[in-house]
């Protein structure tokens, strides 16, 4: 579904990604973790071409991002993305947030889009808030709407960029619950997150990044199972976040 092939990226002289390669198969859930500044968010943003890269290629559902002829907006419409800061559109109601791209990008009719949006809103448990504006919802509720908004486009894969890092602790679980449910339904997912509980529960593979490189890329059982087989850097990282 996603094939990342020897991707390099620089900001000027500074190298953010260095020779990153990995695959995400259909139905697979891959968690990307690593210290801040390790390039994990940049990597996931490269997957739907929100960030350009200079070398290598990423192929999503058979479409090459490095190919200059690729219609990037069209590709992005099939790749769902959830952001750290939700990024709901504050000037639009929740219903409009859920329907605007369906109508303007996919060309769906207003009624069809609204029906689809409301069904997804119900699924994330927020149907009663359809008429409200994003500013009237809590962080956790906004993030659930953001997930519903991405799902409304019928994506072939979902990308999550630290979806719970900006949330109050008590709201983390309501968002993770939605993500777990999605994973169990067979959605292909690539998640940048530090929620190791989530990784243990639903991830098929865990990728560990440091200084722009993919240091570890292995099955969940191996990643959490045998620490001695992990790299020094991954062990230090895990020790820090798993201690408490």
């Amino acid at each position, binding site marked *: 579904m996603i094939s990342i092939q020897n991707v390099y990226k620089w900001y000027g002289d500074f190298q953010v990604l260095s020779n990153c390669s990995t695959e995400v198969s259909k139905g697979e859930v891959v968690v990307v973790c690593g210290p801040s500044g390790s390039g994990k968010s940049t990597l996931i*943003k490269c997957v*739907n071409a*929100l960030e350009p890269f200079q070398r290598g290629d990423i192929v999503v559902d058979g479409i090459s991002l490095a190919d200059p002829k690729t219609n990037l*907006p*069209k*590709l*992005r*419409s*099939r*790749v*769902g*993305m959830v*952001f750290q*800061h939700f*990024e*709901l*559109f*504050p*000037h639009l109601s929740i219903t409009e947030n859920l329907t*605007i*791209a369906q109508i*303007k*990008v*996919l060309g769906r009719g207003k009624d069809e889009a609204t029906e689809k949006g409301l069904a997804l809103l119900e699924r994330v448990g927020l149907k009663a808030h359809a008429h409200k504006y994003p500013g009237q919802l809590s962080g956790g509720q906004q993030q659930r709407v*953001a997930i519903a*908004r*991405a799902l409304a*486009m019928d994506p072939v894969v979902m990308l999550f960029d630290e979806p719970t890092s900006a949330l109050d602790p008590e709201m983390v679980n309501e968002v993770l619950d939605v993500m777990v449910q999605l994973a169990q339904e067979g959605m292909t997912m690539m998640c940048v997150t530090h929620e190791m509980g989530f990784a243990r529960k639903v991830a098929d593979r865990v990728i560990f990044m440091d200084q722009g490189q993919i240091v570890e890329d292995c099955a969940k059982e191996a990643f959490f199972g045998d620490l001695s087989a992990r790299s020094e850097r991954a062990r230090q990282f895990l020790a820090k976040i798993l201690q408490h």
Partner: protein
Amino acid sequence: MDFSAILPALPGLWEGMLTTLQLMLLGVLGGVLLGTLLAVMRLSHNRLLANLAATYVNYFRSIPLLLVITWFYFAVPFLLRAITGEDTPVGAFTSCVVAFLMFEAAYFCEIVRAGIQSIPKGQMGAAQALGMTHGQCMRLIILPQAFRKMTPLLLQQSIILFQDTSLVYAVGLMDFLNAARSRGDIIGQPHEFLIFAGLVYFTVSFAASLLVKRLQKRLAV
């Protein structure tokens, strides 16, 4: 001082005020449209477009409005003749509208640009991630938010334009000030009419400013 001559002159003054308001309204509408286009150009990644817009803005912000008005009075008929090949009579009103909207566009451009830049970058990313083209992102997501934020500034600039329309006396257009002045001259009471004109300008502009301030408070919440 004898203000009694003003009352019978009011219908004529009102006509002048209508011209003033029309000039302002068309100048603001055209200026905001052109200014928005310039702002989007200035922020585009295309160097040529960005530089073109920057040159335009810097040029018009560096020359006096009075010059632009007189210049367009002569230039617009000339340009039209060059384009259409025949004499096209253009009144002072039309040439003044063109002058105002082109001049104000430079100022509106900077207001709109600041408005666009005040919207968090993530909004653009989220819109793009949903598959919107750059044009859709701007039209549906960024500009509606930006305009809401900059409404007070746009209105403030419009109030300035309301006062600046009086410069059309240079090409003989009968706006409010010119109407008041000429009537005062004919009757032989120029001072009374100018004082009255001043009062009207002050009342309209100041009341509008107060309204903008109230609006600003409401939008800030």
